[in-house]
């Protein structure tokens, strides 16, 4: 899957290749599961913890699911909060998991305000300096990043993984 990610980042692979690779991987894991269970306790070391979710009011999940998949196969422990996630749920999840990276996903323009409110809720809970926050989605750019108070935005799934790696390595 590392090769798939690299090829995607280089522009040789496209989203359907990620989806198809995921499908192949799922098939392999299903076949191997009994053996994997027998060998439990040898779980690979994880790079870091990431919380992700589509922000309040937005129910789109294709983009978010791709990021979750790429984070997972890249070695992160991912807490996926799902879609239409209220700000408080992100705050609670940070407290519960001690994740250092938060990724806010949103496809619609209504997500701009939800992202801003989520960043503010994290700040209000006193957790802003404990986490790095990135945003992502088709409409996201520097204007939205500045508006929401996030630390960065990722253009696609691999950009999200690269940012997370950089942040985890640096903290």
């Amino acid at each position, binding site marked *: 899957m590392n090769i798939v990610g690299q090829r995607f980042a280089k522009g040789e692979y*496209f*989203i*359907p*290749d990620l*989806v*198809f690779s995921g*499908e192949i991987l799922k098939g392999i894991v299903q076949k191997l599961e009994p053996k994997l269970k027998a060998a439990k306790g040898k779980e690979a070391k994880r790079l870091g913890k990431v919380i992700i979710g589509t922000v*309040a*009011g*937005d*129910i*789109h*999940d*294709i983009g978010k699911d791709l990021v979750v998949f790429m984070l997972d196969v890249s070695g992160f422990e991912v807490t996926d909060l799902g879609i*239409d996630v209220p700000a408080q749920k992100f705050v609670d999840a940070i407290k519960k998991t001690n994740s250092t990276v938060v990724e806010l996903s949103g496809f*619609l*323009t*209504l997500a*701009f*305000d939800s992202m801003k409110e989520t960043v503010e809720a994290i700040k209000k809970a006193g957790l802003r300096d404990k986490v790095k926050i990135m945003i992502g989605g*088709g*409409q*996201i*750019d520097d*204007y*939205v990043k*500045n*508006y929401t108070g996030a630390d960065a935005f990722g253009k*696609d799934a691999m950009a999200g993984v690269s940012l997370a790696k950089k942040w985890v390595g640096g903290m």
Partner: protein
Amino acid sequence: MPSQLKVPDRVPIALLYNFFGAKYGGITCEEAMYDLDKLEAATRKAIVDFDIDLYNDPFGAISLGPMLEILDDKRVKWPGHGVPVDATYQYVEGEYMTADEYDAFINDPTDYVLRTHIPRVLGALEPLKMLPYLPGAYYLALDLLLPVPFAMPEFFLALEKLAKAGQESLKVFSKSAAFRQEMAGLGYPPMFGSVGWAPFDYIGDFYRGTRGVMLDMYQRPDKLLEAIDKITPVIIKGAIEMAQQSGILKCFIPLHKGLDGFMSPTQFNTFYWPSLKKLILTLIDRNICPIVLWEGDCTSRLETIADIPRGKAVYWFERTDMQRAKEVLDGQVCIMGLMPSSVLCTGSQQDVRDYCKRLIDVVGKGGGYILNGDIGIPDEAKPENVKAMIDFTKEYGVYK
């Protein structure tokens, strides 16, 4: 017509409103979807106050609440019904046609839609699956087989709901017709009167889902191509008939799954572009102007999609590189859009003017550009930003 690439007096302003008009008029998205009079008043105000050059009729795209509710549409969450009262309605992604149903779809799309698809996606019409296979009920079997489900109470109830939804639909159509007439009297022409789809999107959006159609390109490419071939003339016929019925010879074609990153160039040239091109060329041949919304970033597709007759279509772009778009399409296809939602929602009025200036300087140079938001005017746009964009364009966008 700027689509003919002549130089107009100034850059035309065609703003597509989805829920922006409703929000500007002070009503919630839920009210907009259920109350025809309130939506009418809000939209009128948003057209007249901003004095735009081309508007879109909001009723067919927004006044859907009663029908969605009566028919129990499983594919949509709408304000007050799964999303907040002030949020736009949203499509629930799903595999509404399974992979093993391709043959049924290809062999007889009408039968598939009537007896499998509709009962699956519209809860109230689930009993339609009781209908017999209609071409199989011929001669006297027609008399014997066809009436059977109509004797069943649940089928009858479904028909009653359908009739009720039909009455609501008729209200929307009559409101829409009256509104168009009123707008014509005030001197505002509509942006389009017909809608078409890229055949790949039609299959991917409504039937197989994004994941399903992406896997199909690897796992069953022949079936996918066969389904695309089957449905292309259907989409073309629908788009032409709608344009002729409305009397507005402009067809809106919003695109979803062919953008950069969403498929390889080879996949684009195999699964996406040929059938879409056929739709575009047929519309042009019938004197209908295609207004094609290339969502996302389509910069890598520009050379390919430039290959259509000169001065006959509008390409509306979202995140495609404006400089490259102008270089490749100048003198070939009129360009629309490109004003970022992010700037309209989160920027300052000065940000808006700065961006607008770049657009007019680069894309507007020598004509062939129509101002619009990158995906229309976002629901959450600041009204003062929309006003700044229009005021600036009316002044700076004049061709001397």
